[in-house]
């Protein structure tokens, strides 16, 4: 007879407790910036909800949340002095589990169905049953939580299941909850603490020379990798691979595939956009690869960026390679590189450029060791629609389109993508007349942004004129309402004028014809 699978014992020596997770449940990694959750587990078996109209899937989850008395009793902001600077933490701590649940739970409308006080061994506990009934995602749920009251903290152990699966899971849940015990406390693992350099601001880094900055940032990257590796659950590996530090919960060959794709993107950018933030060091990012989409969704609610600004997240998609997860991975790598090379300029990209670059890189793939830049079927259809309807914008119009007008309904995001591809990887990049356009545009953008920034700096020092009459107030209101739009328009128009100031109509005609020829032949 095969031995019974033992439940996984979760031990927390820092807080002084241990509890068994149900057997067969997998431990989940915690986000590095997580303040309250100290443990998470997910059932490996799928539960299903079926309604007359729709259905849903769910994996039961166990979450352990700690409420130290020093945090829950705090009222008001935390003010600390650090040398010359004052740090103000405005985040309001949760007073107790119920407040935490009400403020953080997003699975649907809920209410406490039952509540009683009990004892688990010598430990007093509040036992809660919470029903989730209205506007649920994937069906009605049941949340079963026991809050253990220790002398200087509360520990809440929360189980979430589909309501229709609660009966079959009840025994293992209760067994886990009853296994709670206190243990002797030990000091915290220093490796788990955020690296001191993590608090270094971007503004401080700007004051250093490029070489000093490189040294500092390399140290930050190493410290972050060390910190994120320290808290890995069982089944995960941590190692440098290519230009990434990989935290992996997948097989080695899949991890290698992802890294090769990422390395290829970085190498392409180094070579073909070398003028962008020239000389700046690109830190090695931490690449976290989840075993599937479900595990990925449990980490920070499925956000596509990690808890550290050096973390890129992705997952092994059951639908295969080159799916939506690859799209997101590609753009994460692209944006990491852009921010590392020139953070200010990357943030200042106008909508058409940001949309266009993301659109181009979403679909890139390795082909014969080289990066290929195919277009998407939706893009081809959208462009064809606009051309047929006579609504397709010319390049100059695309480059001066405000962000609010770039959307899915009018295919403008496809036009932006097609134009960027033309410039950086398409016919434009091979055309002697056009191949420096993208570089010139970025240069012009940087100069425009700097110019506006200098003007604003001058104005910020002067106290704003306070309106004295209702008429003056209305005028200021109107100026404010339109101010950002006018600023955006100025950036767009000035950049184009700077980049293409010497161009004549014939030059624009050439570009228009070349661009439209590309999209027609796509």
């Amino acid at each position, binding site marked *: 007879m095969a031995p019974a699978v033992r439940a996984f014992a979760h031990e927390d020596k820092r807080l002084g407790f241990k509890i068994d997770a149900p057997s067969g449940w997998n431990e989940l990694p915690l986000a590095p910036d997580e303040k309250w959750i100290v443990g998470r587990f997910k059932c490996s078996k799928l539960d299903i909800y079926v309604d007359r109209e729709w259905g849903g899937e769910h994996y039961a989850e166990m979450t352990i949340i700690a409420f130290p008395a020093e945090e829950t009793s705090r009222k008001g902001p935390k*003010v600390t002095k650090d040398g010359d600077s*004052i740090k103000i933490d405005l985040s309001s701590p949760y007073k107790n589990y119920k407040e935490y649940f009400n403020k953080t739970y997003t699975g649907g409308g809920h209410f*406490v169905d039952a509540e009683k006080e009990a004892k688990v061994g010598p430990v007093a506990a509040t036992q809660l049953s919470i029903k989730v009934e209205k506007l649920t995602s994937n069906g009605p749920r049941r949340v079963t939580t026991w809050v253990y009251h220790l002398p200087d903290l509360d520990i809440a152990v929360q189980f979430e299941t589909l309501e229709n699966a609660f009966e079959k899971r009840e025994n293992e849940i209760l067994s886990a909850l009853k296994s709670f015990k206190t243990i002797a406390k030990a000091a915290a693992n220093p490796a788990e603490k955020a690296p001191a350099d993590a608090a270094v601001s971007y503004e401080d880094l700007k004051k250093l020379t490029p070489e000093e900055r490189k040294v500092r940032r390399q140290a930050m990257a190493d410290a972050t990798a060390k910190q994120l590796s320290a808290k890995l659950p069982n089944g995960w590996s941590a190692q440098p691979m290519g230009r990434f530090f990989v935290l992996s919960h997948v097989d080695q060959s899949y991890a290698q595939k992802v890294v090769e794709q990422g390395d290829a993107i970085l190498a392409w950018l180094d070579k073909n956009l070398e003028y962008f933030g020239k000389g700046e060091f690109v830190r090695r990012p931490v690449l976290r690869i989840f075993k599937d989409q479900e595990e990925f969704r449990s980490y920070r609610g499925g956000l596509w960026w990690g808890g550290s600004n050096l973390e890129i997240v992705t997952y092994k998609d059951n639908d295969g390679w080159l799916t939506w997860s690859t799209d997101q991975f590609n753009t994460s790598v692209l944006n990491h590189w852009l921010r590392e090379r020139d953070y200010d300029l990357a943030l200042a990209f106008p909508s058409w450029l940001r949309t266009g670059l993301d659109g181009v890189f979403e679909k890139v793939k390795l082909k014969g060791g080289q990066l290929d830049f195919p277009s998407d079927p939706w893009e081809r259809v959208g462009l064809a629609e606009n051309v047929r309807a006579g609504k397709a914008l010319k390049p100059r119009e695309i480059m001066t389109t405000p962000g609010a007008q770039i*959307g899915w309904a009018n295919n403008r995001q496809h036009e932006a993508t097609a134009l960027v591809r033309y410039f950086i990887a398409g016919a434009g990049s091979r055309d002697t007349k056009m191949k420096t356009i993208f570089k010139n545009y970025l240069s012009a953008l940087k100069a425009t942004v700097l110019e506006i920034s200098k003007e604003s700096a001058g104005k910020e020092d002067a106290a704003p004129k306070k*309106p004295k009459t209702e008429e003056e107030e209305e005028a200021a*209101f*109107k100026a404010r309402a339109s101010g950002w739009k006018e600023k955006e328009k100025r950036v767009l128009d000035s950049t184009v004028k700077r980049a293409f100031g010497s161009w004549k109509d014939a030059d624009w005609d050439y570009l228009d014809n070349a661009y439209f020829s590309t999209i027609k032949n796509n």
Partner: protein
Amino acid sequence: MGCSFLLAWVAAFAGASLGDDCLILKDGRILTQLAVEKDGADYRVRFQNGDIKVPAAMVLDAVLVAAAPVEPKNDEERKALEKGLVKFDGRWMPSKERDSLLQRKVAEKKKQIEQLKSHQLWRNRLRSTSAHFDFEYTVPPHVFQRYRDLLEGYFTEFSKQWKLNVPKEKLKVCFYHDEETYYETSGAQRGAIAYYRFVRPLELNVYYDRLDARGTETTLFHEANHYLSALINPGFLYPHFPGESLAEYYGASSFDAATKKLEFGLLQEGRLAEIQSDIASGRLGDGDSGPTTAGASKPGELMGLEALVSTDRMYEHYTWGWSLCHFLMSDKRYKPKFQAFIVGLAFDREVKRDVTLGDNNRSVSGGEVWLQFKRSLGLKDAKAVAALEKEWHAHVQKSIQTTSARGLQLAAESADHSGRPIRARRLYKEAIEAGCRDANAYHAYARLLVRDDRLGEAITIWKQALEFDPLQARLYWHLGRTMAKKGDGTEGKRLMALAREMDPEDPEIDFELDLDALIKKSTSSDTEKTPGEK
């Protein structure tokens, strides 16, 4: 005095437990652990930091544990008192008998209060069925009754106007006693102050705002309209326009509880204020209404008719869309045509209902709405469209004006929230002159006066606010703070301490205390505690 029922809303008046008395207010609050005395016809609540007079008009019921001393009115009463008798419940009796009766009554009332307090928990919610609705609620029964009658009256009148068939199933209406319980239990996203679920199980979720009962009404009228409109042709759901615009039109209805009569087509003054703000800011145009806007207005212009009607979804359906409905329904020439447009969307054969929503409901695209609109309104060409648009714009800019106290208050709030304090101050002043009795309006106005360094005027306004709501802690806080700033430190501090005593959990006071603590810590100068600071 005396009531057959008690209210279920228990205020967080859990401060200094000075007494065992309770006050039950008409606005839904139950205040417990008080020390209360009769003050003529009114009541006086005693706190450690001062007494507060509560007008009898605010009170539904009072539970005073200590029997009030009786002043003899005539010789007969004087003789009875001399014999050691006391008057209670209209009878003279020995004091022991009175005490025993009083204790029993108090115990009964307190038990009722506890029961009703427990009904604030959703698991213990109350249930009730009317002719057309199934209710689940945690609001106080007397509050509930008004809104139940309102919904029934609304159903009846709307049915008559639009010739509805009575549905087989009743709509479930979930009515919460406060905002927090609503957001927790209904699952609504923050900012969605109510919702109608249009797929099975059909449901309407809304909360009672004690500080804005009229707002609760308009919200209920709006959300219920989505349900009622769906009954015009079951299986067809109205798209965003005219759905939301019509809901806003009916949202401005009013209900007379005494006569049970409804009046439709009043002004949505809050929306009018937003339209006026749009015009003042010139924000329309340049695709600001979103990339889905067809034929968007040019910058500085008013909302275009075609853009409004043909766009699938835009926020302006709530504001400009409401004004279009109001214009068309107020004009004898257009009202029947507009009604024909509404009904036609659901029934006419020419309309392509090729949009599918949940539960296999059909709907129409914006483009199709525009075609039907032009057909129904007889707009044969661009000239006709332009002419109607011009009339509508004239209606918005000239025919409808905010004149009511509430309308002026809403316009003031809009100006305040959009960073126009001078305009806001003027409008609040006008609202007060027009008869506004909402303590919130006075409070907001007083805060603006403080920002303009007009402390004396602000103090006067807060004192006026307290006449309408003497039991709102934050009013005392701000009044006290301002008095202290103006030099009356003793009285100011007393009032601030009173505020904290009245409501130790008030988040606005918490925030002010947090700021004080923050400033003190960062400057490390003032060591004196702010009243209420721990």
